[in-house]
């Protein structure tokens, strides 16, 4: 190529290339792609030909520009499942015939799984003018106990003519009261056809769809999200406001802050049993009289119950009618917002693949022999959520699935905020045990300080998600995805999220990503697909690796495992896994576990892992539970305010003959562990409440324990001077600050105020009711003759405020249990 067009030097910009510029070798030269001889030739050309050199420079600049432009294109990774399939194939020696196509092929089929149905019915009471609650309560109890035929008849199907029937036979007010209180005629298909089916369901599919709209990403779910399909956000909002206002006028002051889909929603869509039936008529004032006064800030929400909307099909005759009476009694929900049991048919009761560990109840102990009772706190709540889900599905939870302390601690108590520098307050109360009036009941309550959202520490979260085939169910992966979307919406630029998935093998789906670019995180969550078998062990190692590489000193560093339970561990065995987790917890990376779904739940493993990992174990049975755990209690779930919290109670033998700790069986510690700072114990997160109940047998009351023979080599110890103080016991707590390694001791002597059960605070009575229900589920003999009705009464009488419906839900569940048991 001899240089010909000298005058072409400036022509390049115009693009009118002349012959040397027609030579691709010059372009190749610009990018260093030529062989020696050609390269030399081009070099000479450039030396002699300014235009050629300019061309080369321009090409290089253009190439650089292209690299930059192309580099800015969004890169798209494989889905986690695809990666998992590849990684699975890696483990197959080369040339093996096996192919990883299965996952590959099945994916399209699975895409639709998110569309599976979750019905979230939302109901709201309307104004009415019914009578006082206590009368109704008594009536309901009387009926229940009397098994009144009238009642049964009157509670039969809720077609509107029968409602009339009822009204004439039993009087108008009770029915209205019942309806108003939340009894929505969950009696059978006709009810669901007439009423509930018209009620504000939001399907899971819609939720999933919603996520696909980008504008939703930045928004929190709000009650409007639970409105019927097809409503524009604007009208939703408006309706929210209207109905909220209406409720407020009604005196329902609760729940305004709660955006879990509770109160304000959809009053227009409510229909009583039979569309033509008059609006139900519980007055809010009546609710208040009942204790449902709802105030803006109380008991936490959860996945409340909504019998009306979706469980009607199962209801059957007799016991069902009793249940209604029960419900009238306590099931005073003005809103039914249980979004749980996906669809009725989906509620398989096959729990055969689930494993629970049988726990022997703590027995009564003699103070003379064992004056010290020592245990570790536990703030888990999974057992309650799991039992709720089972009950809603029509199964009575296996006794081993019930951990009393997790029932008790599911609820929010008001023990007063801590003062000074203490991370939690300690509050003790003593009164008579309702099932054994001669016995005393001692309630120990801790309340951790709250953390304002803006004070929350930066977090480094690594989600370790099970995407194995068994997760392909509406109540598993899609629910997990909803939960994650919610959580990510709560996070901000302080936080980073990474996602590791595991199935046949594991892979990093999303490298640690700051939450200000949450769109990428949401997209990654959406891309989750299930398929393959489970190998949790490798995944967990990877997750810890990611967490370690983004470790935030002094921040929240946590691996959050989401699974339906099968956790076939590559880390040799369960013991090895537990050791790994405990070891990582020491390095500051904690582990929380979110359990999902039915049929496969490895309750024990999951609880143990969270325990070893200094984290929490939650069972997510519904979107609302996900909200409770991941949104409303985000601070508690993530931010530890005190660790290794141990409680030791020393009973005074002059006052106390025997005692038993209710629950906490798998948290018991040896007495000497209390002062041993090397012994691990439970963590308390910001805002957490921990409640423990002791049943105490005072001196002089006959005890059923066989007496122990006197000792041959020792004489009983003499009481100290303090024993004469009249103190019942000394409650001692030890805790460490989150970054501390030395424990701090708190001591509280306890005096018995001689209170009756009825005189106790609502906190204690509620805890007692909940504990009793747990014990009832465990078929425990310790609560003697206590019946579901007793529990419902105690519960109903101790509701102080229930703006988010957890209390109503509990009461409902007790009734549900009674109903199921009667079948």
């Amino acid at each position, binding site marked *: 190529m001899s240089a010909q067009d000298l005058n072409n030097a400036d022509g390049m910009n*115009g693009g009118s290339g002349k012959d040397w510029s027609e030579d691709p070798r010059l372009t190749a030269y610009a990018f260093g792609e030529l062989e020696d001889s050609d390269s030399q030739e081009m070099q000479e050309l450039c030396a002699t030909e300014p235009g050629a050199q300019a061309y080369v420079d321009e090409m290089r600049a253009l190439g650089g520009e292209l690299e930059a432009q*192309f580099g800015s294109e969004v890169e798209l990774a494989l889905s986690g499942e695809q990666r998992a399939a590849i990684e699975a194939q890696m483990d197959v020696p080369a040339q*093996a015939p096996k192919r990883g196509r299965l996952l590959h092929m099945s994916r399209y089929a699975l895409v639709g799984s998110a569309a599976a149905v979750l019905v979230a019915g939302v109901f709201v009471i309307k104004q009415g003018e019914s009578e006082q609650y206590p009368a109704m309560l008594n009536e309901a109890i009387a009926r229940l106990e009397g098994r009144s035929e009238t009642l049964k008849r009157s509670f039969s199907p809720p077609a509107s003519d029968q409602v009339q029937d009822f009204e004439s036979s039993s009087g108008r007010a009770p029915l209205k009261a019942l309806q108003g209180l939340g009894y929505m005629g969950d009696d059978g298909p006709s009810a669901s056809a007439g009423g509930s089916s018209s009620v504000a369901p939001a399907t899971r599919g819609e939720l999933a769809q919603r996520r696909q709209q980008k504008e939703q990403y930045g928004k929190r779910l709000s009650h409007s999200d639970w409105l019927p399909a097809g409503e524009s956000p604007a009208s939703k909002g408006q309706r929210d406001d209207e109905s909220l206002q209406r409720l407020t006028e009604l005196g329902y002051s609760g729940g305004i802050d709660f955006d879990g889909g509770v109160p304000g929603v959809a009053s227009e869509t409510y229909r009583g049993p039979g569309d033509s039936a008059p609006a139900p008529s519980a007055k809010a004032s009546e609710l208040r009289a009942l204790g449902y006064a709802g105030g803006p800030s109380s008991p936490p929400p959860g996945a409340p119950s909504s019998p009306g909307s979706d469980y009607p099909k199962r209801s059957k005759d007799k016991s069902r009618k009793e249940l209604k009476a029960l419900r009238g009694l306590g099931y005073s929900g003005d809103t039914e917002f249980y979004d749980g049991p996906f669809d009725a048919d989906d509620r398989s009761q096959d729990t055969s693949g689930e494993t629970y560990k049988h726990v022997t109840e703590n027995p009564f102990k003699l103070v003379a022999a064992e004056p010290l009772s020592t245990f570790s706190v536990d703030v888990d709540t999974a057992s309650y959520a799991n039992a709720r889900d089972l009950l809603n599905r029509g199964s009575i939870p296996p006794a081993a699935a019930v951990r009393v302390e997790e029932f008790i601690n599911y609820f929010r108590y008001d023990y007063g905020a801590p003062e000074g520098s203490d991370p939690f307050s300690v509050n003790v109360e003593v009164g008579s045990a309702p099932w054994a009036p001669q016995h005393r009941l001692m309630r120990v309550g801790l309340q951790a300080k709250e953390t304002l959202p803006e004070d929350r520490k930066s977090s480094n979260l690594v989600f370790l998600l099970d995407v194995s085939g068994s997760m392909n169910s509406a109540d598993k992966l899609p629910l997990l995805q909803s939960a994650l979307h919610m959580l990510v919406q709560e996070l901000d630029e302080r936080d980073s999220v990474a996602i590791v998935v595991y199935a046949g093998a594991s892979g990093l789906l999303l490298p640690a990503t700051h939450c200000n670019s949450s769109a990428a995180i949401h997209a990654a969550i959406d891309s989750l697909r299930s398929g393959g078998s489970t190998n949790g062990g490798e995944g967990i190692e990877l997750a810890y690796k990611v967490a370690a590489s983004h470790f935030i000193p002094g921040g929240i560093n946590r691996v959050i495992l989401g699974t339906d339970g099968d956790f076939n561990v590559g880390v040799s065995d369960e013991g090895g896994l537990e050791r790994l987790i405990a070891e990582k917890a020491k390095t500051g990376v904690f582990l929380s576990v979110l359990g999902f779904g039915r049929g496969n739940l490895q309750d024990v493993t999951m609880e143990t892992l969270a325990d070893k990992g200094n984290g929490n174990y939650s069972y997510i049975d519904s979107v609302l539970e996900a909200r409770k755990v991941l949104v409303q209690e985000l601070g508690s779930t993530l931010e530890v305010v005190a660790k290794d919290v141990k409680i030791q109670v020393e009973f005074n033998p002059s006052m106390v003959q025997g005692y038993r700790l209710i629950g906490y069986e798998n948290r018991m510690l040896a007495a000497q562990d209390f002062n041993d700072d090397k012994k691990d114990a439970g963590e308390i997160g910001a805002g957490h409440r921990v409640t423990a109940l002791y049943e105490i047998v005072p001196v002089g009351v006959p005890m059923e324990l066989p007496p122990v023979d006197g000792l041959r080599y020792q004489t009983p110890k003499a009481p100290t001077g303090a024993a004469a103080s009249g103190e019942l016991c000394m409650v001692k707590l030890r805790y460490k600050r989150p970054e501390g390694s030395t424990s701090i001791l708190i001591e509280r002597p306890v005096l018995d105020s001689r209170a009756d059960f009825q005189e106790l605070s609502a906190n204690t009575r509620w805890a007692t009711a909940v504990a009793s229900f747990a014990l009832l589920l465990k078929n425990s003999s310790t609560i003697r003759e206590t019946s579901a009705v007793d529990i419902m009464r105690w519960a109903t009488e101790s509701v102080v405020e229930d703006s988010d419906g957890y209390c109503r839900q509990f009461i409902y569940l007790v009734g549900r249990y009674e109903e199921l048991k009667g079948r």
Partner: protein
Amino acid sequence: MTQPHDTVWIRQALERHERSLVLYAARLLGDVERARDVVQEAFLRLCKQERSELEERVDVWLFAVCRNLCHDVHRKESRMTDLEDATVASTRATEATPAEAAAQKDSQTQILRMISSLPEKQQEVLRLKFQHGHSYKEISRITKESVSNVGWLLHVGLKSLKEKLGTSEARGAQA
């Protein structure tokens, strides 16, 4: 789970090339989901390769396999109709998640739009060169074009880009 055989190199390949392969395949197919499937398949095939039997660099091998697979997809679905670049862009946009689409849109600069008006082969070669950083020789292996043909395609492609840039500058930036 311990691996009896060496999988580190596959893992590394996955780490390094997964994303650019998806991008490359997505361009060829105009469909992110299919692209992902193709890339998955390519890696699955890689898993069955003995490392010592690979004649070229892993990434070149992967790109070549992906390209073949893309063409298979085209054939199978008798979608061999030449993908007009507009189709590529629009299909992609709908297939991508909103987030991806948004980012996509932003980065859809003038120059990228111009590229998408080039003949498909030129685009592919330009991308292999400037997006994926392959040499002429590697591109030749991947595309089965001769090295000089690759050089020619690049040369022509770059020149017409330059021309277009020149004219658009002359006209004053056209959005």
